[in-house]
């Protein structure tokens, strides 16, 4: 099983932290790379056309969210009686902090809390799609995509397909 795509992400995080780079705008697309969109700070972000067509990672994030996250966090990042609304977390949290929680988990256990986010670091069904889930939730948090299944999407690029297969080890 290869997590090469993810390792690249960690390396990038390290580099950024070292450089102390901080950019206020966490949303606006600065450039595209093989069907994926990034901010000026190389943070993954969503791209939605005027006719509602979403980028492939946002669509993929919709699917993966509703497979891996939905059973605790409720539909479409809205939160539940069990776990918080991730559409807010994706906006409020720094990308690297968000990734850290997904990879390593988080515990809030005391007299009034019994919240435990598991560590998904060795789960390829999550890790190979982490950026997809992140951009989908960010799009939800900004109300850039409505609840429900995105109706129109960009095709899956060859680059995304290759990276996915490499990550899953197929």
């Amino acid at each position: 099983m290869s997590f090469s795509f993810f390792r690249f992400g960690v390396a990038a995080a390290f580099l950024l932290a070292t450089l102390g780079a901080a950019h206020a705008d966490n949303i606006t697309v600065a450039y595209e790379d093989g069907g994926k969109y990034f901010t000026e700070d190389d943070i993954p972000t969503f791209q939605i056309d005027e006719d509602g067509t979403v980028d492939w990672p946002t669509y993929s994030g919709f699917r993966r969210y509703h497979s891996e996250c939905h059973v605790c966090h409720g539909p479409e990042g809205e939160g539940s009686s069990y776990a918080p609304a991730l559409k807010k977390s994706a906006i409020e949290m720094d990308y690297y902090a968000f990734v850290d929680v997904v990879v390593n988990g988080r515990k809030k256990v005391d007299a009034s809390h019994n919240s435990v986010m598991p560590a998904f670091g060795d789960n390829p069904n999550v890790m190979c799609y982490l950026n997809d889930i992140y951009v989908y939730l960010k799009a939800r948090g900004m109300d850039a995509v409505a609840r429900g299944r995105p109706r129109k999407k960009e095709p899956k690029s060859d680059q995304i397909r290759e990276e996915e297969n490499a990550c899953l080890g197929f």
Partner: protein
Amino acid sequence: MRKILLGAAAALLASTGMSMANDSVMSGTKNPNGWVIQTGDYANTRHSTLSQINRDNVGDLQVAWSFSTGVLRGHEGSPLVVGDTMYVHTPFPNIVYALDLNNYGAIKWKYEPKQDPDVIPVMCCDTVNRGLAFANGMVFLHQADTTVVALDAKSGQVRWSVVNGDPSKGETNTATVLPVKDKVIVGISGGEFGVQSHVTAYNIETGERVWRAYSMGPDDQILMDPKKTTHLGKPVGKDSGLNTWEGDQWKIGGGATWGWYSYDPDADLFYYGTGNPSTWNPAQRPGDNRWSMTIMARDPDDGMAKWVYQMTPHDEWDYDGINEMILTDQEIDGKMRKLLTHFDRNGFGYTLDRITGELLVAEKYDPAVNWATHVEMDKSSDQYGRPQVVSKYSTEQNGEDVNTTGVCPAALGTKDQQPAAYSPRTELFYVPTNHVCMDYEPFRVSYTAGQPYVGATLSMYPAPNSHGGMGNFIAWDGKKGEIVWSIPEQFSVWSGALSTDGDVVFYGTLEGFLKAVDAKTGEELYKFKTPSGIIGNVMTYAHDGKQYVAVLSGVGGWAGIGLAAGLTNPNDGLGAVGGYAALSNYTALGGQLTVFKLPD
């Protein structure tokens, strides 16, 4: 109180190894003053012969006392009552309280296990627990982390404890246990984590493991005799739990056993259902995937299966078969029959002969059900007993990465675990149901031990072209397979029902109402808004000659997760999105017991 003393004597006998069935449970369930196991009785009828509260006076019901459990998560199951003591359980961390009924529920003792909180996130869909069981002077708790504990009912001291599974592999527990004869029978959760699930019997006095029966695997693991164990009247044959799977998929095959258990002391068989095969992506597990989605009839002494019936071969929708098996004796075509009635997640209400496993009735108990046209009842057909799947709604036939739309019911089923009641006076079943449909898109997933193993995306919405609500509370004739009356509800009805000789039926709603309706007509007779949504089961007991009704509030579970934010129908126009009721506008977390009585 005399009956209770007799019960205690029987318990004493049982502990000396003289018991048949479990005398303590048998006498306890015959005494209407108490409520000794979650299902009310071995037959899982959830019917009480108490009649002080009846159709004519239930409208006067008032709150007698209440009790906060101190825990916020979803509260399923119900309290028990044995003599002067009420036993109340909570979701994780699975606290047990013994409350004094002579003193407004003052706490006699409290037991709080130490559990690793890492078990919380491997419990799919909330940290619920469906309650305690009482037998032989002990209260049995099956914790989230799969530790089974026998507590001394008087002191709360641990008599024995045993670990049934490994949460680091996704093995957890939400279910109650079945005390039967000299054993405690327990199930396991983990269908969404690729657990090869099982049912296990422990010695009731020592906690020593006696046998374990897996849902799939070789014959010596599934405890089936290829010649003697039957499926729809025919021997199951050799390796039925292997040759209906491709490769080693059965080793991560699911078939969790997290539902309810019933027992027929005359036939000496216990009954339960198995859950979905893993993963939710049917393309990854060709074959019938036996014995997931199956009604099992087993011998409690050695675990051997007498008969089985697989309701949903090769599941494509997550229609777990774990719902309760209600045992009744009713007349069909002039003959008394020993029946088993089961309201499956797949939307069919099944009636079988519980001795032979013969299929008698299989009809839809929600008209919205559309994934299959019918269950084939022609014994000469090679399709006998199989649901006739509609291609359009087959997530297998539509394939991976294709979104199959408009499937009814949704994955949470026409009914989930919330148990129905049966009144022998009306011969009707009272069934809490969901009225929700879904889109389902399966895709390929990898298995990692202890990680979710799902492989499908789904979105759920209220059944289209209906009353717009997400639930119904229905009365069902199990002999004919017909709905007699149906009460529309805004949300899924996620509370277990109770019927009584007062010809009243009780249930709770997700907004938090306890409701009482007329057993014959369904007419609403009483409602009271408790502090939080009800996913617990209504129970009744009598103390000092007065009847009480009690229910746990505390929203959560799958209902709290799925419905908190409201549902949207992706197939509706954009204007309708968000147009359905959000449960979070009606209720918030908080565990509380509310006890009702008639005015003094």
